[in-house]
């Protein structure tokens, strides 16, 4: 019984720490120079462990350019856009976290 409570407490604490990440990928219009949401962008969340980089989540943006990554543990990650553009981000211990938008050229 004691063990079960302990496990439950750990699970609850883990869930409480998980964060729902949200952000947007933009693209520059080649002619007007205006900035628009980038649809179809690949957004990957990568964490570096002792075993090397591990892919945590992959998302493909819709026409609004938004990406959503639920239940991400707090820590330092790399946000990789279209498999070449890397951004260092820190996931905080909060229910929802909005990341600043990224711009792909």
């Amino acid at each position, binding site marked *: 019984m004691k063990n079960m409570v302990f496990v439950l407490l750990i699970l609850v604490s883990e869930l409480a720490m998980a964060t729902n990440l949200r952000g947007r990928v933009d693209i520059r*219009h080649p002619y007007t120079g205006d900035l628009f*949401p980038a649809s179809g962008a690949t957004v990957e969340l990568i964490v570096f462990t002792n075993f090397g980089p591990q892919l945590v989540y992959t998302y493909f943006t819709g026409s609004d350019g938004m990406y959503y990554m639920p239940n991400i543990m707090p820590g330092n990650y*790399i946000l990789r856009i279209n498999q070449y553009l890397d951004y260092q981000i820190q996931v905080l211990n909060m229910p929802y976290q909005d990341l600043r938008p*990224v711009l792909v050229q």
Partner: protein
Amino acid sequence: MDREIAGIMLSFALYLTYFLIPLVPSILIYKIFPNTSVVASGSFSGLKINSSGAFAAYLITLVISINALSETEARILEIRNPNEPTWSIIGTLELRDGEGNVINNPMLFDLLEISLEPRVLSSANGDIHFKIPGSPDGSPPKRMITLDVKGFGRGKINLTSEAALTGSDMVVNYQNRTIEFNEPIEITTLTQPGQRYSETSYMTPVTGAGQ
């Protein structure tokens, strides 16, 4: 008259013609030149033919008229089936990563776009021309068409209601089965002016990270 009924009647008339037209010369040959020997031999539709007299004349005229009437038959079929024949592609998609593992993310299917080669859509300098399956009763297709300019914006063509089809912005030609727009179809950008970010608000990429 209903297209389908007209098509069936024309088909019946055509098959009657197939039978009657060859009959005329064969009767004439039989009546006028009873002693003339007409011989037809060879293979026809996989059958070996070897006949003479009026029946041979009938067969010869039949073969000639089949070629002549085949084009008429094609036109009748077009009347009976006003829409281009459409085929249904039925299947299930499966997403896999680079290592071949199955990815279970139904949200990705919302991003699915299907293209054809050669394309059913042609567009040049903003002029578009494409075909879509019509309704079974021959009326214009009751569909909402979305025109998506990647990374820019989206426009819609609403054909779902009768009111939309009778609007002043489009001309529906039931004979040629075309819907032509008088005014440009607007593609509106997804980003509103108030939503635009300045360049300084973007994250700065990390050079070489994760390489």
